């Protein structure tokens, strides 16, 4: 290794503008990754505040704080902000930081486009959040934007549609970047089936994004022309079909769900193997399972619409195809369990979050299987049971995996170990409160409480109160998360290159071979992978 040349190159390339100009003009994958992650954290807090408005109103029956119209704006915006502003950008940030380092590439393949896609996303969200202050308020028809209701939105309507267009463009560019990087810039010797599972999960996610974001863009454009140019795509009075939008939306929406969870699968696989000190069980099966889930996500969409009055054959098809998803998902859960089996397990904060993911995501998987059964879904549909289900897969699922990733890679990013004690407290508070928050919602839904209502019949009071207490506890715990990250960014014990223990018979991945913090430019000379 030519250490001296390397060092000289670094000294040369590390020059970057100081202050704000660095962040406005950077094309460095690490800087862009950081911007995505910081943006995502900010959106997580904003979306979380909206959730707290919802839970405060639902704390007891009667309307105490907000008007029902504003309540609907909150449910809609909470979902849009969390899905498109918090979870997706967080995984994009992780992809930016980690994919080049995992595959031994010097940067993303298309650095300028990388920066462009970040700023598109940023302005998309400035637009979307600005709708809260427009006449008529923010969109209030649910994040699913179903017509005809969504056409009753005020001035926010075209702004929100444009914001969705920008987000879609941003996601597509980000995905092209991931695919081009992985396909062309892997280090010599790193065949696809040697690639770390996080990079694998993102490769498949990127294809899903490219396939479905244009579908959403098409759907909202048709809404736009229905609203402003008198077309009748979804207007029955003009021969249109309101259910058509639901089909378009969920053809995007179901893959979208996996866009949020597949990177989480990748993260959890990496962490479980590191802290079991044993490579993932059934690596190839894990890759094929992710690919199967991605394929199935295209043929299950109408299970979100069992109550719209589909033909019997349609209901049967979507029940059966949806149940099939349980098979590759089961394979993944069994493989994670088998990775733990006869491992040498330790419980650092990333592992704690990954283990909570294994249990709680699986609970969300079970309720998902129940929802797949059309006859039972006629009761579950549009109730709090559904709310509980998708929050279990998204919060202790996707969000916990992202937190696990932050605790796993933060020392690599900052060069400092974070406060382990506080991170443990953050873990236990989050895990306890997330269950207090969402588990009772199963009961509420089964007992007959519909979702998206600002006020409820009094028999639902007790569990709503419990759920709201969980929400405030969970929300407050996240301030601790912010504090831990800031503290680690400022200083702390010096992290080693490997950060975590890497036994000799289970060598660390490439990201652990560079120093911590990772130098501004890594792998300018491609490493050799055996």
């Amino acid at each position: 290794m030519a250490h001296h040349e390397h060092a000289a190159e670094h000294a040369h390339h590390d020059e970057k503008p100081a202050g704000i100009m660095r962040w406005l003009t950077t094309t460095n994958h690490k800087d862009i990754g950081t911007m995505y992650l910081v943006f995502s954290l900010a959106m997580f807090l904003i979306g979380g505040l909206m959730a707290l408005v919802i839970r405060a109103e639902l704390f007891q029956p009667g309307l105490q704080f907000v008007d029902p119209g504003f309540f609907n704006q909150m449910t809609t915006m909470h979902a849009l902000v969390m899905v498109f502003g918090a979870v997706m950008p967080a995984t994009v940030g992780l992809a930016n930081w980690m994919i080049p380092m995992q595959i031994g590439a010097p940067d993303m393949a298309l650095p300028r486009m990388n920066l462009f896609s970040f700023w598109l996303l940023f302005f998309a969200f400035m637009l979307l959040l600005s709708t809260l202050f427009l006449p008529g308020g923010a969109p209030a028809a649910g994040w699913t934007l179903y017509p005809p209701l969504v056409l009753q939105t005020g001035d926010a309507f075209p702004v929100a549609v444009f914001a969705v267009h920008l987000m879609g463009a941003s996601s597509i560019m980000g995905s092209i970047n991931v695919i081009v990087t992985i396909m062309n810039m892997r280090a010599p010797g790193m065949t696809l089936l040697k690639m770390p599972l996080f990079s694998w999960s993102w490769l498949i996610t990127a294809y899903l994004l490219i396939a479905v974001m244009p579908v959403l863009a098409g759907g909202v454009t048709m809404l736009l022309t229905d609203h402003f140019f008198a077309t009748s795509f979804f207007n029955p009075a003009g021969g249109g079909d309101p259910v058509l939008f639901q089909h378009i939306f969920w053809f995007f929406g179901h893959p979208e769900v996996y866009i949020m969870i597949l990177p989480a699968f990748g993260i959890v696989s990496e962490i479980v193997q590191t802290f079991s000190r044993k490579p993932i069980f059934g690596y190839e099966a894990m890759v094929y399972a992710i690919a199967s889930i991605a394929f199935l996500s295209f043929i299950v969409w109408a299970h979100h619409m069992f109550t719209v009055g589909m033909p019997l054959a349609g209901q049967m098809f979507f029940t059966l195809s949806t149940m099939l998803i349980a098979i590759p998902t089961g394979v993944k859960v069994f493989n994670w369990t088998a990775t733990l089996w006869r491992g040498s397990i330790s419980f650092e904060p990333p592992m704690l979050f990954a283990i909570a993911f294994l249990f709680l995501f699986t609970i969300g998987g079970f309720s998902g299987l129940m929802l797949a059964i059309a006859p039972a879904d006629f009761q579950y549909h549009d109730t709090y049971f559904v709310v509980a289900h998708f929050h279990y897969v998204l919060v202790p699922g996707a969000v916990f995996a992202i937190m696990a990733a932050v605790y796993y890679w933060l020392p690599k990013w900052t060069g400092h170990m974070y406060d382990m004690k506080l991170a443990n407290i953050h873990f236990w508070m989050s895990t306890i409160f997330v269950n207090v928050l969402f588990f009772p919602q199963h009961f509420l839904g089964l007992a007959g409480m519909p979702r998206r209502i600002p006020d409820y019949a009094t028999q639902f009071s007790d569990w709503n109160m419990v759920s709201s207490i969980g929400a405030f506890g969970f929300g407050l715990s996240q301030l601790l998360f912010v504090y831990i990250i800031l503290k680690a960014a400022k200083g702390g014990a010096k992290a080693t290159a490997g950060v975590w223990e890497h036994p000799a018979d289970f060598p660390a991945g490439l990201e652990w071979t560079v120093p911590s913090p990772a130098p501004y430019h890594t792998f300018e000379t491609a490493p050799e992978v055996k």
Partner: protein
Amino acid sequence: MANSKKLLAGTTGAIVAAASLPARADWSLLNMPVGVSELSREIYGMHMLILWICVVIAIFTFGAMIYAMVKFRKSKGAVADMSMLHNTKLEIAWTIVPVFILVGMAIPSVDKLIKIEDTTGSELTIKVTGYQWFWEYEYLGTGVSFYSRLDEASNEARQLDSGLDPEAVDHYLRNVDNPMVVPTGTKIRLLLTANDVNHAWWVPDFGMKRDAIPGFINEMWISVDADKPGTYRGQCAELCGRDHGFMPIVVVAKPRAEFDAWLAGEQVKAQQASTGAATTVRVETTDGGESVRLAKAE
């Protein structure tokens, strides 16, 4: 601030409520109602079947995870077994076995679907129309139709900062001025549609919900057990705008003879109305639009 005081009072209340939960908990509020019709019982049975299958799988999966976490801890001196990287037989087994479990769940569910979708042989058809934010029930072929809205007591209490205690209101948010009336022991076909935006008609005790969509007529059927007359409550289940949470559904199921008497009475009222013995009352709807309701002259 009044709100923060309320929050404080609410928090105290919550702690008290949480402490007294076991004492006042109504365990029926933890699960789906069994309901009062053949369909609802079958749907409940389906729900319990899949729930128990999930519980059994969960016990095995979570059991294995917990065992691994206890047994294979590094702090207890566990050493990683590097030979355990994959096992084709095991992997095939845990791919194939779930297929059989899923087939076991799919067969009864398809069976129930066929039954649910069979609306033939109904004795009465009621057309249900959703509006922002109330329902209309039209007893087809009888000339009887009426609107059904949130009752006045709930409506007053549900206003922002009304100061009224919802607990003191009879069936808060689950009460209407004119309930839908149906005969027990009769297969009733519902035709569902909407006038403005999507709604969904749902009474949990009947086991079913279905969307009411403008431009579409959806079908579903209900049948209340002959020995279960009573009042059954539900509400709109599809987000339909500002007052989505305030359009309840109340169905009063009466024995056949009582229902026939009720229907005959309503038909007389309807006839009187159409011959001009009634006045037309204009009713303001919340969105500023108007709908017309027929009422008997005082």
